[in-house]
């Protein structure tokens, strides 16, 4: 009985670790999508954040500077995306794709130039674990959810704050209005462009944070293209969680759990190919998308650039 409890706790603990970057990025993307800006560039922004965070932490030995630098790079590319999609009114999917390529190229280029000659992979310290008093004493759930590092607690706070922001504040409602009907929002005096810029930049910040989390909590080292498709899984999580921060967290937990189960099964010697598990989040996303037929709650203006002078 005790062994099972320990196993469950360990699995959940690992799931939270896996889920956190997905949730950070997913929350950013859901705010962006709510305002009508689809950003496929999540992958690239996460990668850019991760690389910058790794670089700055390596050279300054400061976690805080690393995180800030990672977020700054994310912010930069989020702004670029807004510039292309909101100001220049270009196709959002292609812009995101271009950002992914651009960042993948830049990070690989600089990684090779800076660390290509090194014989050992450079690594950085990871954040220390700070168990929360009282909460971490809850059996099973306590050690799994409340015995993490500070950045994970930041995630919990971000989840709560974004939920309140989207559901309870004027700005949140305005954001939804901009995503549903930008023309009506514009007519009632809501600054459509400014809100879309804000949402896109917030997305960049969150993706940079997700990348930083991967560096200073999850991995502690960097290799080329370390995100390896996690940005796309985050997109799937946003679709599954229907742009609801809490739901995105639980979906990400589930995805993290499948990865955890995979490692456990492999260590027990159960012969299930890892590809089956890698396929899982995407398969589940597709299946849930199929179930959401007819009940889609996508913002009406998702992916559509807003032009004040154009009649709709």
């Amino acid at each position: 009985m005790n062994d099972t409890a320990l196993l469950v706790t360990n699995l959940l603990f690992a799931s939270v670790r896996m889920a956190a970057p997905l949730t950070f990025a997913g929350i950013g993307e859901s705010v962006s999508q709510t305002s009508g800006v689809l950003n496929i560039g999540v992958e690239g922004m996460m990668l850019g954040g991760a690389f910058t965070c790794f670089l700055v932490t390596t050279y300054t030995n400061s976690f805080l500077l690393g995180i800030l630098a990672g977020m700054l790079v994310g912010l930069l590319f989020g702004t670029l995306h807004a510039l292309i999609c909101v100001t220049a009114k270009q196709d959002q999917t292609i812009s995101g794709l271009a950002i992914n390529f651009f960042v993948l190229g830049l990070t690989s280029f600089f990684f090779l130039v800076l660390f290509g000659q090194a014989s050992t992979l450079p690594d950085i310290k990871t954040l220390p674990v700070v168990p929360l008093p009282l909460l971490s004493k809850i059996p099973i759930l306590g050690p799994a959810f409340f015995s993490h590092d500070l950045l994970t607690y930041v995630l919990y706070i971000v989840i709560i704050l974004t939920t309140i922001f989207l559901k309870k504040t004027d700005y949140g409602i305005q954001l939804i209005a901009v995503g549903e009907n930008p023309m009506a929002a514009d007519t009632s005096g809501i600054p459509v462009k400014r809100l879309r810029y804000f949402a896109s930049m917030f997305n960049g910040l969150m993706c940079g944070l997700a990348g930083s989390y991967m560096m200073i909590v999850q991995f502690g080292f960097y290799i080329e293209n370390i995100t390896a498709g996690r940005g796309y899984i985050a997109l799937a999580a946003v679709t599954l969680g229907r742009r609801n921060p809490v739901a995105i967290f639980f979906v990400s937990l589930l995805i993290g759990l499948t990865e955890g189960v995979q490692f456990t099964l492999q260590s027990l010697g159960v012969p299930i190919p890892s590809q089956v598990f890698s396929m899982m989040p995407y398969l589940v996303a597709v299946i849930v998308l199929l179930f959401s037929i007819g009940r889609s709650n996508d913002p009406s203006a998702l992916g559509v650039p807003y032009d004040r002078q154009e009649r709709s």
Partner: protein
Amino acid sequence: MKINRNIIHYIWPVASVLMTAILLLILIGVDLGSAFSGFFRGMFGNIYQISEVLVKTTPLLLAGLGCSIGFQCGFINLGAEGQLYMGALASSVVAIFLGHLPHLLLIPLMMVCGFLAGGLWALIPGVMKAKFGLSEVIMSLMFNYIAIQFIALAIRTWLKDPEYPFPMSQPFTESAQLPRLVPRTRLHIGFIIAIVLAALVYIFLWKTARGFQIRACGCNPRASFCVGVNVNLNIILSSLLSGGLAGFAGFVEVSGVQHKLMDGISSNYGYLAVMVSLLGSNHPLGVAIAALLLGALDIGGLSMQRSAGVPTSLTTVILGMIVIVFLLRHHFGKKEKEISHE
């Protein structure tokens, strides 16, 4: 003054991309002369290099044509990568299990299977969009990863060559390989087929009624619906053709170049195809030029790595940069023209 504006409009995108490249090259301290000469010699230094460029161009052209058909109809197909893999898988299965068939029977069979597999893989998001209004963007992206993992699974289990420790399929028999165009190069007949298909796509989209309907649905689905065009049917058809061409690119890659199925048969061709389609304004001729450009860029980058030790990731940076400035070029440096219109 106005002419000046126009020149700036054309020059700033090229200049900014070039400046970025030069800046990065200076940053890593390589000799600019040897880097650039390596780059251009790599593109058309000798007959082998030119043939390599065309080998790279072929799948980009095919998948790019596929994407352009989708875009013309408003079907944003980001799933070319997955469709390419499925096409490669289907034609590989045919090649391996029916490898004893004669050349003239086997190759067409592989073509059809590759086309159908890619087409059907794209048909699912297509039908979902047409019938139920689901976003094809996310859907086709998810299908990419499912396809890639599915192929990875296949070549590790039921399609694996038992004689090799690496995850790959058996090598194709002679009759399952596309014939070479030029001896001692990798250039194969698939390149000619791709050019012919580009011409066919042009004729289909611009010279037939169905093609006109497809383009009309892309421009304004509601207006098309109001004049009695079956919008859903056109979306489904364009998704089938779009995926089919991407699947065909997969067939060309395994049958013409690799001669076996393995991981990473496509080096991001599916995603590059989206950009090829954009840079070529979704027109077959433009797509062909863009595919050639990207193919040359890739080979030039490889050669630059050999001659001057520049990481090939520079090519990826340049590519992303090209697309970003291409998107922004419409907005910046065109102000005067817009005002004169009003």
